[in-house]
Structures are given as C-alpha cells and as structure tokens.
C-alpha cells in the first residue's frame, strides 16, 4: 500500500513539474503575475510529493518490504538500520530518487529564499529547474521505477554490496549529489538569463551563493569518497583516477572556475558570456557524471547495451539538456552586452587565467575518462588510461595554477603592477626557500622534484597567509588595530584565505604520501615482528568474531618505535554472510606526520598470515585541507546571505544599505 502511495507521489510530482516548467514561462512572457507566482507554489508541491515518495521508499527499506524488487535486490533483514537507510540510495533507482529529491529541495529553496529576485527572472529560473525535474522524473517512472512490485517476494533480500556498508559511504552519495544538483540552480539562472537577455552584477550575486553551496558539498563529497577509498579498500591509496572518481572531479574543476568567474561578473560586470557558458558546462558535466555512472557505460560500451532502454533515454536526455542549452547560448549570447574592460595583469586577468587553466585541467580529465569510450565506439580498439596519463597532462596544468593561487588575490582590479605585487610576497618567498631547505633536511635529501613540490605547497600557504596579514595590517599597525581589522573581515575574505590555505595543505599531503609512502608485505606467524620505515609491528595473533551480518578475523599488532610502545592496531578481514564477499577493514593509527596502516590478508599453508603494512606520510593533511575548504565555503556563505538579502537579518541589511549609501556619498 505504501509503495503504491510512493508510486502515486512520483506521478503527481511529475505532473507538478510539467505545469511548473510551462506556466511560469508563459507568465513571464505575458507579465502575468499569477502565472509567474505559480512557479513558487508548484515547486513546493513538487517537493512535497517527491519527499513523500522518498519517505515511502525509505519506509520499505526500514521494514524490509521484499515485495518491492528494489528492496529485495539491495537489502537484507539483518542489515544494521543505518545501512538499511543508506541502502535507499545505494542502488540505481533509489539514487535517482535521491537526486530528484535534492533537485526539488533546491527548486523550493530558490522559491523560498528568492523573494527579492525580479519576478520574471524567478519565474524563468523555476521553470528551467522544473524542466530538469521533468526529465529525471520521466526517466525514473519509465525506466527505473523503485516502486515496482514482485509477484513472488523472496524470503529475504540479496543485501547491499558489503563495500558500501560503511559510515563514510553512507553519507558520500548524498553530499556528492547536493554538489551535482546544486549546480542545477546556476544552470537554471544561466538559461533564464539567456531567455531574458540580461546579465548583470545582481544576477551574479544571486548565482554565487548557490554555486558556492554546490561547490562546498561537492568538495566534501569527493573528500569523503577518497577517505573511504583510503581506509576501506585496504591499499592505502586515496585517488585512483578511476572514471567514477573523475566524473565527480570534472564538475568540481568547472564549478571552481565558475565560482571565480562569477566574482568578476559581480564586482566588475565583465566576463558575463563566459560565466554563463561555465554555468551551462558545469551542470552538463554533473549530468554526464550522474548518467555515465548510472548507465554502466564506464565499464565498457558493451555493458551499455545490457539495458538499452535506459541507455537510449539517457543519451536522449543529455542531448536535449546539453545540446539545447548550448544552442540557446549560441543564439542569445551575442546579444549580451560586454562589460568593464581590464588589462591582462589585473585581478580580472588573474581570475580569467585561473579559468583557462581549470578548464584545461577539466578537459584533460574529460579526455582521459571518455576517450576510451569514443575510441571503442568508433571501432578504434580498446585502450586503458591511468595515472601515467594524468601525471603527464593534468599535473603540468595544475602546477602554474597552484603557484598563482596566492598571487591572484593580491592583484588590484582593472590593472596591476606585477612587480609591486610580487614585492609584497617577498617574505613569503623567503620563507618558502627556508621551507624547501627544511624539507631537504628532514627527508635527508629526498627526491629533488618532490621537495620542490613541497616548496610549492609552502609557497601557496605562506603567500595566502601573507595576503591575510596584509589585509589586517599585521605588524604594520598596532596589534589592537590589526585585531579590529581581523574581526571585521567579511566571511567571504575568511573563506578565500581558508580555502586557498586548505588547498595548500591538501597538496602538501598529496605530494608527501605519493612520494614517501612505504609499504611492505610479509607472511608472519604470531609473535613475529616486521619493521617498516623504522617502526616495529609485532603480530600477536588473530581471533574470530561475528558482526551483525558478517564473520570476521581480527589480527592484533603491537606497534612500537625504538622499543617504545606506540599503539595497537586491529585490522579485520570480513566475510559478509549474504553476498559471501570478503572485505578488508584496515587498522589505521593517524598522527600529524603520518599514518600507520595495517591490513591482514589470508592464512597461508604453514600457519602464517599475509600482512601488509603501510606508512603514509602526512596523508591526513589531504582531508584536513579539504575540511578547511568545506569550512571556507560555509563561512563565505554565511557572509553572502546578508549581502544577497535572503530573509534572515533584515535589520542588518538595512544597516548595510545605510552604510553603502554613506560610502556612495563619501
């Protein structure tokens, strides 16, 4: 009964979305305020129904209703509650429903928070948002219905893939999807602006918070995914250039470019056409990412044919969404007026260069991910594209970008004096040289290039900090003044400093762990010790234990350094009861300078156990840096909200207006 209610709800949501994608458009054309206002109402109705459907599916998972195909294929009654719930989006149909739910939430949020948007723009944005909804809901209802019943329900379900039964992966998809789908708002704004034929600073001010929200969640989602890969896959790796990772990385790169170019539109009313194009491309990449993972296209072109109905539908949707929006862009963009002009060496110029490099980096990942598919489809044979390709193409593009991260923010608008700006970075430069020497000393003259890489990370961090110190006049004014200036810094300024600093820290972690990672493998009997990178791991033996839905073997290692006890590591090897799939649960001891990582493998004939030990220098810096970036996003958002004049803080907004009037008068 509840499943039928869910079925009914998605159909109602589709009807609401269809109405929402047509009526407000007509209203905006005829300046009919009632039709335009319908957009807001419809988006709330749509959200209500999608939420209801999602609730119904979740309920079916919680009570293990195996009369639903979807639940029977992806759940099991003995699964812990958390994984019953996360199982809702651990499969194709459910994840599509989650996607639609988030889309509806964003649509309703635009309706609710966009009270001061021009009515025609708002109506058009909501209509475009609903069109995306129509596409996805149709796809869900006709090819991927999660509410399909089974005539003969099985006694129990087939369970969720054990690799996915993990807290990290329970929250990874929702975060990633908030990121993907969040870019739909920027997309809708871009299309609406093309229809209106008007892009101005105000438009950019409305677009930026949404883009920033999406970017923040996408950053968090990707970081969570790589963290999961690190501790769950048992190889100590955190990024594999796997197509599934790449498709989430592409919208991130493009979205980062969009975030930066929108600043130029907002502050200088320039780069408008380019920003619109970026908004379209970013969301197009999100769409491609979602569909490519979902269609099974990635494994091989051939697996695409396993479910041709879905495949064709996906291609059709992509063609309409991407082709349609680019055609509209080509048709309308020339009519957008160019804005303020600037010289190549200026803040705008720096941001444009950032965009060029990020777009190139994104193109690199795009080629690496999709080229094998195109080649195979065209009968050109199969190739594999892995880390060697990206090391030779992606890394060289990123290096100049990273080196300039701390230079750009120092450049003034319109035109800048590069020598003067670099002069302001002289202390950062000197400190960088010291950092390089320090790295040289600590690593005992390790690989030269890796040390330069660490120097690059130090330069990014120190340059960013020195820009921040400049801003608050640290050591150039009395400390009290600096303090005053610091607490008055707007959230977005903090956001920039934190995001760039976080990036620097993450880059340092990536380089260190890629270059100085040490691994060893051995067969150990209880009581034997293995020494890896100066640390002793004594294998104390194994014990068997049973989890809620798995059997496990747990090994114990006593870790010590120079005879001094450090910690005990207890890695597990699990065998899940239903799918009979083994997984490794690595044991990790994290410290500031590195991780101690142990994995237990199979028992060999003579009674010993295969154990693998990894020493990962500074690996946690990667996720610490990403956390800072996410925090930066939220800080900046907290500031934006006041500026954009969203509901909260009416009084403050008034104050701001007074202030800006005063400024204008002065």
């Amino acid at each position, binding site marked *: 009964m509840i499943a039928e209610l869910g079925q009914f709800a998605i159909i109602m949501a589709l009807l609401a979305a269809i109405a929402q994608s047509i009526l407000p458009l007509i209203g905006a054309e005829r300046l009919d305020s009632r039709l335009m206002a319908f957009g807001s109402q419809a988006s709330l109705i749509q959200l209500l129904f999608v939420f209801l459907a999602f609730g119904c599916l979740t309920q079916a998972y919680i009570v293990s209703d195996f009369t639903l195909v979807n639940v029977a294929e992806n759940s099991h009654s003995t699964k812990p509650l958390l994984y019953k719930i996360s199982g809702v989006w651990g499969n194709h149909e459910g994840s599509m429903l989650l996607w639609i739910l988030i889309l509806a939430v964003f649509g309703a949020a635009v309706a609710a928070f966009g009270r001061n948007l021009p009515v025609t723009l708002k109506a058009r944005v909501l209509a475009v948002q609903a069109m995306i909804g129509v596409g996805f809901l149709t796809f869900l209802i006709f090819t991927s219905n999660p509410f399909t019943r089974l005539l003969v329900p099985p006694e129990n379900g087939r369970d969720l893939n054990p690799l996915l039964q993990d807290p990290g992966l329970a929250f990874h998809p929702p975060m990633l999807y908030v990121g993907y789908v969040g870019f739909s708002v920027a997309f809708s704004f871009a299309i609406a602006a093309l229809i209106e034929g008007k892009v101005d600073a105000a438009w950019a001010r409305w677009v930026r918070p949404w883009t920033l929200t999406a970017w923040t969640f996408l950053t968090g989602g990707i970081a969570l995914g790589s963290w999961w890969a690190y501790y769950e896959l048992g*190889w100590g*790796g955190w990024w*594999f250039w*796997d*197509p599934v990772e790449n498709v989430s990385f592409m919208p991130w790169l493009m979205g980062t470019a969009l975030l930066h170019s929108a*600043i130029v539109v*907002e*502050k200088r009313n320039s780069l408008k056409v380019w920003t619109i194009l970026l908004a379209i491309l970013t969301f197009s990449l999100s769409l491609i990412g979602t569909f490519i993972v979902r269609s099974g296209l990635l494994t091989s072109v051939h697996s695409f044919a396993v479910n041709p109905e879905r495949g064709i539908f996906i291609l059709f949707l992509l063609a309409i969404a991407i082709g349609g929006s680019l055609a509209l862009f080509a048709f309308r963009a020339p009519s957008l007026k*160019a804005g303020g*002009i600037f010289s190549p060496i200026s*803040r705008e110029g720096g941001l*444009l*260069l950032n965009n*060029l490099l990020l*777009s*190139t980096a994104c*193109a*690199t990942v795009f*080629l690496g991910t999709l*080229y094998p598919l195109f*080649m195979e489809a065209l009968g*050109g*044979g*199969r*190739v*594999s*594209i*892995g*880390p*060697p*390709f990206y*090391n*030779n*193409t992606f*890394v*060289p*593009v990123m290096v100049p970008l990273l080196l300039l991260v701390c230079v*750009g*923010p120092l450049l*003034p*608008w*319109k035109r800048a004096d590069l020598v003067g700006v670099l002069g302001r970075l002289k202390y950062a430069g000197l400190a960088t040289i010291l950092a390089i020497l320090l790295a040289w000393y600590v690593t005992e003259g390790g*690989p030269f*290039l*890796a040390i330069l*890489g660490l120097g690059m990370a130090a330069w990014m961090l120190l340059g960013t900090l020195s820009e*921040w110190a400049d*801003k608050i006049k640290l050591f150039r004014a009395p400390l009290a003044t600096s303090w005053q200036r610091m607490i008055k810094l707007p959230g*977005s*300024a903090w956001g*920039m400093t934190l995001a760039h600093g976080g990036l620097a820290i993450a880059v340092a972690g990536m*380089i260190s762990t890629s*270059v*100085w*990672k*040490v*691994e060893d*493998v*051995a*067969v150990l009997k209880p009581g034997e010790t293995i020494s890896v990178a100066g640390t002793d791991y004594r294998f104390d033996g194994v014990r068997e234990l049973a989890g809620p839905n798995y059997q496990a073997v747990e090994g114990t290692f006593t870790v010590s350094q120079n005879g001094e006890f450090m910690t005990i590591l207890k890695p597990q090897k699990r065998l899940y009861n239903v799918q009979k799939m083994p997984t490794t649960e690595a044991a990790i001891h994290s410290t500031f300078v590195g991780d101690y990582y142990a994995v237990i493998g199979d028992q060999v004939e003579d009674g010993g156990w295969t154990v693998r030990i990894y020493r990962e220098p500074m690996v946690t810096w990667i996720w610490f840096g990403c956390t800072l970036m996410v925090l930066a996003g939220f800080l900046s958002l907290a500031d934006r909200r006041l500026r954009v004049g969203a509901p909260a803080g009416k009084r403050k907004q008034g104050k701001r207006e007074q202030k800006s009037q005063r400024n204008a008068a002065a």
Partner: protein
Amino acid sequence: MRGLFLLTAVLFLFTVNSNPVKAFDPDEVLDDPALETRAREISKEVRCLVCQNEPIDSSNADLAKELRIVVRERLVAGDSDEDVKSYLSARYGDFVLFRPPFNTATFLLWFGPLLVLGVGGIGMFFFYRGNKKLKVANPLSPEEEARLNLLLDKDNKTKGSDSGEAS
C-alpha cells in the same frame, strides 16, 4: 632553459618513488631489490584485464598474479622495462597498459589538453585585443582622463583595502 628544466621536473614529479618496496604476495618477491623495484613500477602500469580499472600490482585476481609473475620472469630473463611492456601489449593489446600508446588513434588524447589550452589562449588574446580597441574607439578628453584617473585612484584604494572580499 631553467623554465624547460622546471617543466620536465614537474612532469616527473609524481612518477618518482624513492623506496624499494616488495610485491603484493610475499612469495613473488624477487631476490634482487633493484629488479623487484622495477617489477613494482611496471606492475603499477599494467592493467588487470579481468578487474575494473585496477593495476595488477593491487589486484587479488588470479590473472593479476600470473601477470605479476610473467613481469618478473621477463625481467629476470634480462628484458628492459620497455621490452616487458611491449611483450604484454603484443599479447593482450594496448588495453593492458595504463599508459596509452602514442599513435594516430590516440593523438587527440595526448594533444587534446594542449589544444584546449591553445584555443583558450588565443581566445584570451583576442579578448584583450578587443578590449584595447574598445578603449581606443572611445578616447577621452584630457579633462575626462584626469577626472577618471582621480576616481580610479580612489577606487583602487578602497578596493585595495577590502580586496579579499571578492575572492
């Protein structure tokens, strides 16, 4: 020259690995540490054909184990790294190598990023040239110029003080 050096330096930044390490399975490890290190480096670039996007170096599959042993046998027999790779690709096709070969079919793959950078760079060049023309097309009178400079200076100062706000 130094620029060129730096670029080459960067190209190899992530491919260096200073530590000799042992293989996946203890029983496969070669006695000669130099050979073993080479074997590991090769194994990281060889795809396990029955897995999803996994190098033989980290795969549990039987085929991966066989290939790891083949790599080591070839090395012991005196093959160079390139010999081993071409031996594998001759048997299993280019698909077995994570570094795609450079030929007419993969030309666009290897040069695509450069192409995008080039097209973007040219686009930027024309954008800035258009900007210049725009400036020249509407020259200012000397008075306007003076006033503008005054305003610009003021603007730059205020902008400079809250310059971080935008980023």
